[in-house]
């Protein structure tokens, strides 16, 4: 494992009795990287993260996080990571400052160092004006900001964010991701799970997890290139055209978006040509648009389901 590799796993697996939650996860995450773990509910994302945090012992495979073995030294792993839970649960009846002071203490920071660190974090995250506000009275975006501050209090080299933007408005989401990029630029490694594909596109690299194993991993551009997907959009609400397109072997997916149809083709087939064929001369002109991770994700999961 190179000096710049923060997380490395090989064939990581976890079973609960007869249920296999994670089958085979091999990952390598570099320092300063924003690494997204994507996948439907129940795919094994949370179990994977819990193993990486030292909460669950793997039943197969091995892994190191921040230089420590996750199976043999889970307590050491915990001192080197930050973790933000799914619902970024805060103590509703503590003020922002009290919350930060508490978590600083939990991470063993005491005395003057604690006061200084808390003030520093308050200032950095724009929380100074709200430091005496009860956490329970904050809006979703502010709660999220406090939760992230808590996870970063002990300046961990690696931070896990478990669906960090659930229930947060779009403006706060945007601001949150700017902060994530700032952290990464400073050398913090960020591992994030998400359902939102626009967020996935903001990661340096992503891994698609499905049924306890990784379907594909790489930068969003690499993954898209590997799928060879192209997409066209066209004004159309004719069900017959939809059906014709779905029968076409070159077509991967047809999805209505309002009055438009979004047609995805595989193996580099020209989507505008495919659409024109299906609609005849009468239809409006199709426009090719950029394929995104959602297209790739849907395509991968469908292909996997068909294979079974």
């Amino acid at each position, binding site marked *: 494992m190179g000096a710049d590799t923060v997380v490395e796993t090989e064939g990581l697996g976890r079973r609960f009795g007869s249920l296999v939650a994670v089958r085979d996860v091999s990952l390598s995450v570099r320092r300063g990287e924003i690494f997204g773990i994507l996948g439907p509910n129940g795919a094994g994302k949370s179990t994977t993260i819990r193993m990486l*945090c*030292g*909460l*669950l012992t793997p039943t197969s495979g091995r892994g190191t996080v921040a230089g420590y073995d996750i199976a043999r030294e889970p*307590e050491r792993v*915990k*001192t080197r*990571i930050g*973790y933000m*839970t*799914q*619902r970024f*649960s*805060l*103590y*509703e*009846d*503590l003020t922002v400052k*009290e919350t930060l*002071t*508490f*978590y*600083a*203490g*939990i*991470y*063993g*920071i*005491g005395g003057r160092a604690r006061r200084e660190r808390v003030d520093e974090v308050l200032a950095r995250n724009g929380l100074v004006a709200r430091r005496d506000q*009860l956490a329970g009275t904050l809006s979703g975006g502010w709660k999220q900001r406090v939760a992230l501050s*808590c996870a970063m209090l002990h300046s961990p080299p690696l931070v896990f964010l478990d669906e960090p933007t659930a229930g947060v408005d779009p403006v706060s989401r945007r601001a949150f991701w700017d902060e994530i990029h700032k952290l990464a630029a400073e050398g913090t490694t960020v591992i994030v799970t998400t359902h939102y594909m626009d967020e996935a596109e903001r990661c340096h690299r992503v891994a698609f997890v499905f049924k306890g194993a990784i379907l594909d991993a790489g930068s969003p551009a690499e993954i898209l290139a590997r799928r060879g997907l192209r997409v066209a959009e066209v004004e159309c609400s004719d069900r017959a055209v939809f059906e014709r397109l779905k029968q076409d072997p070159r077509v991967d997916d047809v999805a209505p978006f309002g009055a438009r149809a979004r047609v995805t083709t595989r193996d580099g087939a020209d989507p505008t040509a495919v659409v024109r064929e299906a609609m005849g001369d009468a239809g409006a002109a199709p426009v090719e648009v950029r394929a995104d991770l959602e297209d790739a994700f849907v395509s991968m999961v469908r292909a996997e389901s068909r294979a079974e």
Partner: protein
Amino acid sequence: MTRLLAVAWKELLQLRRDRLTLAMMVMLPLVQLMLFGWAIDTDVRHIPTAVLDHDRTAASRDLARSLAATGSCDLVGDLRDEAELTRALRAGRARVGLVIPARYAESLARGRPVTVQLVVDGSDPQSVTGATQAMGGLVAQRATVMLMSRAGVRAPPLSVESTTWYNPDLRTAVNIVPGLVGVILTMTMVMLTSMAVARERERGTLEQLVVSPVRRWELVVGKILPFVVIGYVQMTLVLIAGRVVFDVPVAGSLGLLYAMSFAFIAANLSLGLFFSTLAQTQQQAMQMSFFFLLPNILLSGFMFPREAMPEPAQWLSEVLPLTHFLKIIRGVALRGAGFEDLRAELVRLCVILGALVVLASLRFRKTLA
């Protein structure tokens, strides 16, 4: 140590914000003390008593008045016949009926044996025992006096003089106040701990703690430390109020009492922790605590003497920490007992404590991950 103190400090902050719980912590012991101290009196007096006097002489009226003078019975009316007696008892107007036969005075004067009849309502056995005992004592005393005058002796050949130590007036409050310390500690310690952990689980903050480097024992000790303080505050409150309001002093060493109470408080906190590993929500934790409280109140000897219980119930009560704590606190507070007198009870309490600590930490280890 930093981590442990951070947890304890956080619990205190949360407790301070939770005004309702805090108020309950203080009010609960006081209200319970007033309720139990005043309302519970196992010495039943003033039982409504009706008299069916077939004799209607000065002597028969004197017998009825003497019964009333014992304080156990209150005369609530004269009856004309047996049918009226039946109605009075059935309607609940009287719990006891005193039937004095015709020629009562005449028979007494002539030295013929006379039997007066006492009819009691047995549907509430405890309440009428006082009346039968009072009447029994009264009649026996009168019979003795008559025999003595007939035999020409001054003093009865055999008599008893009982001396009551520690609680000469046999006041129930004296028994209740120290017992209440135990009941209140059982109630609040178990409930507070189980709810404090369940609350973190319910809100999802427990997950955040588990991924932190805080050790389990630091988390547990930090969480229950403030409750130990609360336990001692409650204990002090009840003892002071018991002294001021009910005049129940602590006869023995306060230091010894507080030291021995630690084992009891710790046992209840461990039990609360154990409950918290079973409960997913605060509501479940609360229900479990209440479910646990009932056998404590009934079986521990707090309200009913354990000697009167069937053997299986006595065995069951042996595993309740409260049973042993009651013996300790009543020993120290009322009888001035010392460490040597109570060592056996303390050992039993510590065995229970040890078992609970093992049980709670095993379960806690499993459920946290």
